[in-house]
């Protein structure tokens, strides 16, 4: 990053449900922490997310999923990034992800998962920690 380099992160809410409050709260908190947040809104397909992340040249993709669709979406996003030869975008996730599945997703390439009760500070610290 140059002298004015900023952390850019794409926040997406894949899946068919309309519960985007969490994603919006996170977007706002990350903005207040000085990051540039590309907010893509509801019902984004993995293809949309990966394409947008590439065009926006973000360092992070944040996926907010509450509907259980993560078991379809996580592998798909990871696979699409790989297909496009992208190895420098990190994926983090939040929402309802069963605890017992977390090791599996981390192994697959989801860097961090923030479940209910996570504080925004925790998320910000995590992102700042690996970005710098």
């Amino acid at each position, binding site marked *: 990053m*140059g002298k004015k380099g900023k952390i850019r992160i794409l926040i997406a809410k894949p899946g068919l449900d309309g519960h985007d409050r969490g994603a919006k709260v996170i*977007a706002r908190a*990350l903005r*207040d922490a000085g990051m*540039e947040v590309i907010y*893509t*809104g509801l019902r984004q397909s993995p293809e949309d997310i990966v394409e947008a992340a590439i065009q926006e*040249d973000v360092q992070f993709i944040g996926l907010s999923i509450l509907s259980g669709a993560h078991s379809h979406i996580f592998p798909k996003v990871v696979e699409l990034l790989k297909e496009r030869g992208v190895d420098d975008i990190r994926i983090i996730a939040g929402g309802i992800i069963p605890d017992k599945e977390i090791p599996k997703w981390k192994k697959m390439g989801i860097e961090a998962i923030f479940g209910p009760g996570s504080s925004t500070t925790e998320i910000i610290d995590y992102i700042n920690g690996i970005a710098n």
Partner: protein
Amino acid sequence: MNQTELIRNLKNGDVRAVARLLTLIEDEDEKAEQILKEIWELTGKSYIIGITGPPGSGKSTIVDVLARTAIDHGHMVAVLAVDPTSPFSGGAVLGDRLRMSSAHESGIFIRSVASRGHLGGLAATTRFMVNALELLQNDITLVETVGAGQGDVEIVQLADTTVVVEVPGLGDEVQAQKAGILEIGDILVVNKSDRPGAERLFKELQMMLSLGEHGEWLPPIITTTATSNEGIDKLWNEIENHRNHLGNEKLRQQRLRKLKYDLENQVSQKLFNRKIIEVGSDKIERMATSIMKREIDPFSAIEKIIKE
């Protein structure tokens, strides 16, 4: 990607390479300058359409439908959408993309840009970002400004055709008499024309145009309801009319004038930065203290610093 690789991929119009160059440019990374030098001759090939107007007037939606219309007419389109940076945190939520789903579906390259403290409706680096986008071989670039106020007229220095989007209900008729953003429009749009007051706004704009001075081109006023695609074909036609009106010669003159303006700005900025570093902030603070104590007037202080 190392730099040689990056330049090679840029020359092939690779999307990831262009996206990376855009980041380097907006970070004002010194590599951006080196790379732009290498690819400069490949840029400057798109027709730049600027979309500006107050916050919430529907700029993003218009860009979305306009982009699709341009594609239907056989063009290749890329989009830069500028949103404001928070003056408090330095962060930004860039939400224009949210309203550009159909452009996104058409495979258009869209880049969200934060203004990063620059005033005037664009980011400081927007011009070079447009040049970088042109490596994608697009022949049309749509640039959406920050939700603009009456003084945010920088887009006119960048765009070949500037579209000003207004909506009913924002102010009384005196607003239309005010200078600034309305005067820069080559095309004026009354968006959300299904709302009350649209007809009145249309008439006010008409009145403003008939009172004001204009050259050979009389800006048309188009009413649109972008969410239902209404009036967008008409808007596209007027953009083409304006482009035809400019033709090659006027477009060349217009671009030359803008580049000259830009070059002057860049030179003065660079000289300014060099001078400030050379003089040093201690010296400037001492001068400011003297001005505050009325030991010296600001005009003599400026002369003294410049002669330093």
